C-alpha cells in the first residue's frame, strides 16, 4: 500500500463488474431498456479509464523499480500452496490497463450506435462489461492463478459474444469452436502452472521470477517445458499456429466485439503473458526460438490467406492473426518492448479498421434492410465506391490501412520496423532469425497488398450494391464516427510512444518498461546494429510497404469485379488461398472426424451402452435378482419357521460359547 491514488486500482475492475451486475439485472428484468443500459455500460468504462489515467499518472510520479502489489484476501491457502487474490501494478500492467479501458471505452461508445436496434441490447452490454472486468483481472493479477481466472473469464465472454446471435446455428458453432480451441491452449497453461509450482513452490509472479534463476538451470529441460506449455496457452488465446482457426470464425459475433475482443485486447493476452514471463523465456533459448518461429510462420501464413478473402471482416481477422504473429516474433526475439509497442499500436489501428468495417456493414445492412433484399452485407464484392457515401469512414480507414502497411510516420511503421530490426539483429547471432526476418518482410509486403485490396474494393471503383439500395447508403451516426475519429488520432500519433533513438526520439515506452523487461533482457545476446545498417533496414521496410500499396493499386481492377452472386469460383492457387489452405478441412479429417467416430462407435456404443449400461448397471440388477431368487426359499412367511431357525441359531451359539 503506497498511500497514493495508486491504491484505487481495484476500482477499475470493480466498476466493470458493477456494470455487468447492473446491466445483467436489467437484461433479465427489463430487456427493452436502452438509455439506462447505454449510460451504465459506457459510463463504467469511461470511469474505469479515468481511474486508469489517475493511477498511471501517480505511478509515474512515484516511478518505483519494483511492482506495487495489493493483497486483498487469502484465496487458496492449501498446505504449501498459498495464493492470495492480489493485484500487481507495474509498468507493463499499466500499459495494458490503459489500452483495455481506453480502447474499450471507445468501442463501448461505438456499440451504442451499432447495436441500437438489437433486441439483446442489455445482454450485449452486460457481456461486454463482464469481458472488461475479466480482462482487467488478467492484466492486473499478481500470480498465475489470478491471471488464469481472467484468462478463462475472457474466454467465456468471447464464447458468449461470438454466439451472441445464437439463434443462427452457425454462430453458436463458431462460439463452441473458439471455446474448444481455447480449452486446448488452457490445458498447456495449467500444465505450465503445475510445473512452476512443482519446481519453485510458488505461483506469485514476484516469487517465481526471483527464484527462477537459481531453481532452474538455464536452457534446461524443466524451463523449456514450462515455457513451451505456457506458449501452448498463448497459441490458443492469441490465435497462433496450430490453434488459430477459431479467430476467423469468431467474426460471427457483433463487429464491435471483433474489434474489442478479437483484435485489440483479449487475443493479445498471449503476448502479454510472454512479456510478463520474459525472464522465463529468456532462460529457455529453444522456447524463444519456437515462439519467434511460430510467430513468423503464422504472420506469413495468415497474410497469404487474407489475400483472397471476400468477407471484409475475414480479411481483418486473418490480418489480426498475422499481426499477432508479428508480436510473437518480437517477444520470441526478446524485443519485449517492440512486442508491447506493436500490441498498443495494433490495438489502435485494428480497432479502427474493425469499427470502420462495422460502420460499412451497418450502412450496407440498413440499405439492404430498406429494400428487403437478403444479400451478404459483409462481402466486398457487394460494396465498391463507398467512399462517396461515407467519406469519414473511408478517410479514417485509409489512415489505419497505411498504418498497418507500415508507412511512416504512422503508428504501425515504428512498431513493425522495430520488430523487423530486432529480428535482423538477432540474426547476427543465430542465423535462423534471418529466416524469421525474411518471413516478416514478406508478410509486410502481403499486409500492404491485402489491406489496399480491401480499401480498393470497399471504397473505390463503381458501386455494386444495387440500384435500389444505393440511395440508402449513408454515413454512420456521430456516436459511431466519433470513436473512429479518436482512434484515427491515436493511429496517427501512436508512434510517438516509442520513437527510436535513430530518429532522435526518446524511446519512451522502452525506458518505461525497462523495470519489467530488464531481467530477461540481461540474458539475451545484445546486438547493436550500426547506424547505416539500421537505416538500410528502415529503407527496405518502407520500400516493401510502398511496393505493396502501389502494387495493389496498380494490379487490382475494382471496375472488373462483379457482385458476389454472379462471381465465378477461383481457379488454381487462388482457390487454395480462398479456401484458407484447406486447414479447416484437414483439421476436420485429422482430429474432428476420428474423435467423433471414436466417441460414437467406441465410447458411446461400446463403452457406454454395452459396458457401462449393459454389463455394469443392468448386470448389477440382474445379479441382485438372481441372488434374491436363490435366497427366497428361506423366507417362508411362517412365523413358526422363523422361530425354529432362531432357536437353532441360539443353540448353535450356546454350543460354540460353552463348548
Amino acid at each position, binding site marked *: 500500500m503506497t498511500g497514493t491514488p495508486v491504491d484505487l486500482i481495484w476500482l477499475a475492475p470493480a466498476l466493470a463488474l458493477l456494470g455487468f451486475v447492473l446491466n445483467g439485472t436489467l437484461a433479465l428484468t427489463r430487456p427493452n431498456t436502452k438509455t439506462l443500459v447505454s449510460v451504465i455500460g459506457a459510463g463504467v468504462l469511461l470511469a474505469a479509464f479515468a481511474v486508469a489515467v489517475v493511477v498511471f499518472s501517480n505511478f509515474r510520479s512515484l516511478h518505483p523499480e519494483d511492482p506495487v502489489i495489493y493483497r486483498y484476501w487469502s484465496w487458496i491457502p492449501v498446505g504449501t500452496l498459498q495464493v492470495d487474490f492480489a493485484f500487481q501494478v507495474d509498468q507493463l500492467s499499466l500499459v495494458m490497463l490503459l489500452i483495455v479501458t481506453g480502447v474499450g471505452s471507445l468501442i463501448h461508445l461505438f456499440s451504442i450506435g451499432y447495436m441500437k436496434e438489437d433486441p439483446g441490447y442489455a445482454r450485449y452490454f452486460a457481456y461486454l462489461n463482464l469481458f472488461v472486468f475479466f480482462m482487467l483481472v488478467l492484466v492486473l493479477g499478481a500470480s498465475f492463478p489470478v491471471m488464469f481466472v481472467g484468462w478463462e473469464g475472457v474466454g467465456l465472454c468471447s464464447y458468449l459474444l461470438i454466439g451472441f446471435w445464437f439463434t443462427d446455428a452457425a454462430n453458436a458453432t463458431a462460439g463452441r469452436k473458439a471455446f474448444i480451441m481455447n480449452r486446448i491452449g488452457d490445458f498447456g497453461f495449467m500444465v505450465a502452472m503445475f510445473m512452476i509450482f512443482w519446481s519453485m513452490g510458488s505461483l506469485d509472479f514476484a516469487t517465481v521470477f526471483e527464484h527462477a534463476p537459481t531453481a532452474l538451470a538455464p536452457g534446461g529441460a524443466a524451463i523449456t517445458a514450462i515455457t513451451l506449455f505456457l506458449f501452448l496457452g498463448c497459441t490458443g488465446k492469441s490465435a497462433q499456429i496450430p490453434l488459430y482457426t477459431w479467430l476467423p470464425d469468431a467474426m460471427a459475433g457483433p463487429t464491435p466485439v471483433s474489434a474489442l475482443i478479437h483484435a485489440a485486447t483479449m487475443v493479445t493476452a498471449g503476448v502479454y503473458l510472454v512479456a510478463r514471463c520474459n525472464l522465463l523465456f529468456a532462460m529457455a533459448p529453444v522456447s524463444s526460438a519456437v515462439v519467434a518461429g511460430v510467430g513468423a510462420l503464422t504472420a506469413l501464413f495468415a497474410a497469404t490467406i487474407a489475400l483472397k478473402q471476400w468477407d471484409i471482416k475475414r480479411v481483418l481477422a486473418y490480418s489480426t492473426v498475422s499481426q499477432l504473429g508479428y508480436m510473437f516474433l518480437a517477444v520470441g526475439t526478446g524485443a519485449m518492448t517492440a512486442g508491447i509497442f506493436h500490441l498498443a499500436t495494433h490495438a489502435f489501428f485494428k480497432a479502427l479498421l474493425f469499427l470502420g468495417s462495422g460502420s460499412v456493414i451497418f450502412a450496407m445492412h440498413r440499405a439492404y434492410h430498406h429494400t428487403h433484399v437478403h444479400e451478404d452485407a459483409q462481402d466486398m464484392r457487394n460494396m465498391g465506391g463507398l467512399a462517396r457515401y461515407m467519406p469519414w469512414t473511408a478517410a479514417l480507414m485509409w489512415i489505419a490501412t497505411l498504418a498497418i502497411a507500415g508507412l511512416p510516420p504512422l503508428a504501425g511503421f515504428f512498431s513493425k520496423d522495430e520488430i523487423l530490426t530486432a529480428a535482423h539483429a538477432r540474426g547476427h547471432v543465430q542465423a535462423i532469425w534471418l529466416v524469421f526476418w525474411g518471413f516478416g518482410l514478406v508478410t509486410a509486403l502481403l499486409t500492404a497488398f491485402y489491406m489496399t485490396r480491401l480499401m480498393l474494393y470497399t471504397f473505390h471503383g463503381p458501386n455494386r450494391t444495387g440500384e435500389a439500395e444505393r440511395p440508402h447508403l449513408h454515413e454512420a451516426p456521430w456516436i459511431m464516427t466519433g470513436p473512429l475519429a479518436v482512434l484515427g488520432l491515436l493511429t496517427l500519433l501512436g508512434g510517438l510512444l516509442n520513437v527510436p533513438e535513430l530518429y532522435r526520439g526518446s524511446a519512451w515506452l522502452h525506458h518505461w518498461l525497462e523495470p519489467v523487461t530488464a531481467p530477461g533482457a540481461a540474458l539475451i545476446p545484445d546486438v547493436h546494429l550500426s547506424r547505416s545498417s539500421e537505416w538500410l533496414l528502415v529503407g527496405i521496410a518502407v520500400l516493401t510497404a510502398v511496393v505493396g500499396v502501389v502494387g495493389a493499386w496498380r494490379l487490382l481492377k475494382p471496375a472488373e469485379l462483379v457482385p458476389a452472386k454472379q462471381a465465378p469460383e477461383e481457379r488454381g492457387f487462388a482457390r487454395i488461398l480462398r479456401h484458407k489452405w484447406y486447414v479447416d478441412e484437414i483439421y476436420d479429417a485429422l482430429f474432428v472426424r476420428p474423435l467423433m467416430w471414436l466417441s460414437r462407435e467406441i465410447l458411446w456404443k461400446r463403452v457406454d451402452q454395452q459396458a457401462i449400461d449393459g454389463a455394469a448397471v443392468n448386470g448389477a440388477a440382474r445379479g441382485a435378482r438372481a441372488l434374491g431368487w436363490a435366497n427366497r426359499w428361506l423366507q417362508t*412367511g411362517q412365523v413358526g419357521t422363523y*422361530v425354529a431357525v432362531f432357536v437353532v441359531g441360539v443353540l448353535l451359539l450356546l454350543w460354540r460359547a460353552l463348548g
Partner: protein
Amino acid sequence: MLLSPALAISAVLFTLGVAGVLFRRNAIVIFMCVELMLNAVNLTFVALAQVIGVGGQVFVLFVMAVAAAEAAVGLSIILAVYRHKQSVSLQNMNLLKDG
C-alpha cells in the same frame, strides 16, 4: 431353598416354553409360552440371588415390569389380528410371503 432343584425346575419350564413356541399354532398359547420362558428365567434369577447377591431379585422386578408391558402390547396385537382375520392361528399370518 435348595439351589439345584430350583434350577432344574427352571430349565424344565424354559424348555416347555420353547417347545410350546415351536410347535403350537395358536398365537395366545405361544404368547403364554413366552411368558413361561420369562418366568423360568425369573426363577433362575431368584435362585441364584442367594449365591451371588440381591441383584438377581432386583432384576426380577425389572423383568416383571417389562413382561407386563409386553403382555399389554402383545395381547392388543393379537386382538387386532383377530379382528382382521377372524383367527389367531399363526398359519394364517403369512402376508409377507410372496403369493
